[in-house]
């Protein structure tokens, strides 16, 4: 069997499922809004660059924005669960199948990292202290990306779950450390440091016990990647949202216990657990933290209000995916749930969670004494009005979907 051809075919099949949605993505209001926000950001950023505040921690901003981009690694292998049976005899030659996945994983994510660098570059040029030339930045980011991708790939092969988690943490620490060293140290010192650390990191990766081909990990990773793609598409168009990654999050087990014990509350219970253990919570929490940091940083300004509302909207767009949870699950058909419960509970849970996020992102404005007090109350009211408007929009949209 030609394994390279097989992967190509699978990739084409995958994109043939995604591409039909793209026209809807462009037509959707979310896409237009994102475009408007991009234009607004560009205008603001240009003005900001002309009046950079004194003592702005540009080094930290570089690390904060480039760090996640350098760390993020993922590979689309298009591996199917049945492959662990049917491709097992070809295990010895599977590297030919995985090689394109590894390199294209690096290529796409590297272009994203370079795009962030390009946006940050004018800001970096205005920073004090050590400033490295652009072309060396490109090389260093490439090296970091290669080291990170190699580490992420080796992690997939590690047999023990705990060792895998440990090496993931090690990778994050190593990459952030190297990036920080590059930002703040002279080029020769940090490059020497980079080489030493990377060599040691690669050597350390040889120690844990590994699978030759980590079938189960690859299948799980592929499932999660495919589900993430659908999750992103779900912001714009109506797509199934099954197959999202699940984390136990034991410390959140208490959530859902107090939901009323009734047939009406049954679906709310299921949906709450789905939110608590699914990727949506992680995405929402990250956006809320980022939103809170940015809102706090901007203080009681119009920009702060704009960012605050933008993040409320962005988190709301993510939470709207709750509508699709378990929609295609036949298991729910077997339980006597009240009709209309799914739509109602998705809107209820989505808007309550969004209101919670809106309040959390508003909190950093409290300790800031400067700026009018009416701004403080007004911004919270504006955020909650947006939550209410999004909920009304969901109700209307989902009702129309049902009527169709």
């Amino acid at each position, binding site marked *: 069997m030609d394994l390279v051809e097989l992967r190509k075919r699978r990739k084409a099949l995958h994109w043939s499922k995604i591409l039909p949605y793209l026209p809807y993505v462009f037509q959707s209001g979310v896409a237009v809004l994102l475009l408007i926000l991009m234009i607004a950001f560009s205008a603001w950023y240009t003005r900001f660059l002309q009046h950079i505040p004194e003592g702005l921690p540009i080094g930290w901003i570089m690390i904060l924005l480039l760090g996640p981009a350098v760390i993020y690694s993922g590979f689309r292998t298009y591996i199917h669960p049945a492959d662990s049976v049917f491709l097992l005899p070809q295990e010895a030659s599977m590297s030919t199948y995985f090689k394109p996945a590894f390199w294209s994983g690096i290529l796409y994510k590297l272009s994203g990292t370079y795009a962030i660098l390009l946006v940050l570059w004018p800001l970096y040029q205005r920073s004090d202290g050590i400033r490295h030339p652009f072309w060396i930045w490109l090389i260093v980011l490439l090296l970091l990306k290669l080291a990170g991708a190699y580490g992420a790939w080796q992690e997939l092969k590690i047999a023990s779950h705990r060792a895998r988690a440990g090496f993931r943490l090690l990778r994050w620490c190593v990459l952030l450390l190297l990036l920080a060293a590059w930002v703040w140290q002279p080029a020769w010192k940090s490059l020497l440091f980079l080489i030493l650390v990377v060599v040691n990191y690669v050597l350390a990766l040889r120690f844990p016990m590994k699978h030759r081909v980590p079938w189960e990990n690859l299948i799980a990773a592929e499932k999660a990647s495919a589900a993430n793609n659908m999750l992103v598409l779900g912001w714009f168009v109506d797509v199934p949202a099954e197959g999202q990654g*699940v984390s*136990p999050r034991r410390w959140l087990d208490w959530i859902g216990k107090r939901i009323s*014990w*009734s*047939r009406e*509350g*049954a*679906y709310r*219970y*299921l949906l709450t*657990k*789905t939110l*608590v*253990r*699914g990727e949506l919570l992680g995405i929402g929490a990250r956006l809320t933290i980022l939103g809170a940091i940015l809102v706090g940083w901007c203080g009681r300004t119009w920009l702060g209000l704009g960012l605050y509302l933008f993040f409320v909207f962005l988190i709301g767009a993510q939470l709207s995916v709750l509508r699709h949870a*378990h929609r295609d*699950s*036949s*298991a729910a*058909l*077997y*339980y*006597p*749930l*009240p*009709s209309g419960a799914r739509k109602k509970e998705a809107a209820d849970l989505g808007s309550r969670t969004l209101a919670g996020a809106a309040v959390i992102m508003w909190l950093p404005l409290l300790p800031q004494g400067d700026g009018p007090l009416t701004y403080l109350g007004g911004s919270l009211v504006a955020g909650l009005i947006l939550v209410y408007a999004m909920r009304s929009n969901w109700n209307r949209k989902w009702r129309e979907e049902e009527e169709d």
Partner: protein
Amino acid sequence: MNGTPVLQIEHLTGGYSLGRPVLHNIEFQVSPGEMVGLIGLNGAGKSTTMKHILGLMTPHQGGVSLLGHTREEDPEAYQAALAFVPESPLLYDELTVREHMEFAARAYSVAPEVYEERAAALLKLFRMEEKADSLSLHLSKGMKQKVMIMCAFIARPSLYVIDEPFLGLDPLGIRSLLDFMMDLKRSGASILLSSHILSTIENYCDRFVVLHQGSVIAQGTLKEIAQVARMPGATLEDIFYNLVKGGD
């Protein structure tokens, strides 16, 4: 075991496309406190019959009624009167074993204290106490099947529809399940059970419905279907083999 049937299937013709029905004029009933074995070869129409009972498919002709009412009359009451255990476990990855049972208890309006009592007993019976707080995606296939069974048994509906319950279960699990079903039956619950393990269900089911190529070719007690097959005193397996061989 007499009285108004819990499940009544009358002249049921149905399938996935109108022109090519899978089921042809199916007729049988399940009475209160009765365990009925639905048996047939692969593709005989057992799962399609169950899908019609569950309301997942709409009959082309005829109908299904539960406690005298059809699904169209009151879908929620109809659904609440039955519990289903599918052939392949269908669980929510996000829920633990205990949470699955809690979800089922909530959906079937089982009181919290009754749920606690039943959940503890079922976890013990199926030896799942240690896995109670594990996410379902970390369970083996047999354990997943046990969770499906426990979820169905946490409620006490009038009818249990159980499709191939023994698949993936260990011998102790099979014994626990059969004993529990007998207890349920004695308490008045009705069970429609589909299985290929004929030697196992032979001693537990009160009656059998033999489906072949979408039609009922025999139904009744073991003795009655033995008469149809002209094999008095034969085992269910031999009777079944004779019936389907004759039907080809």
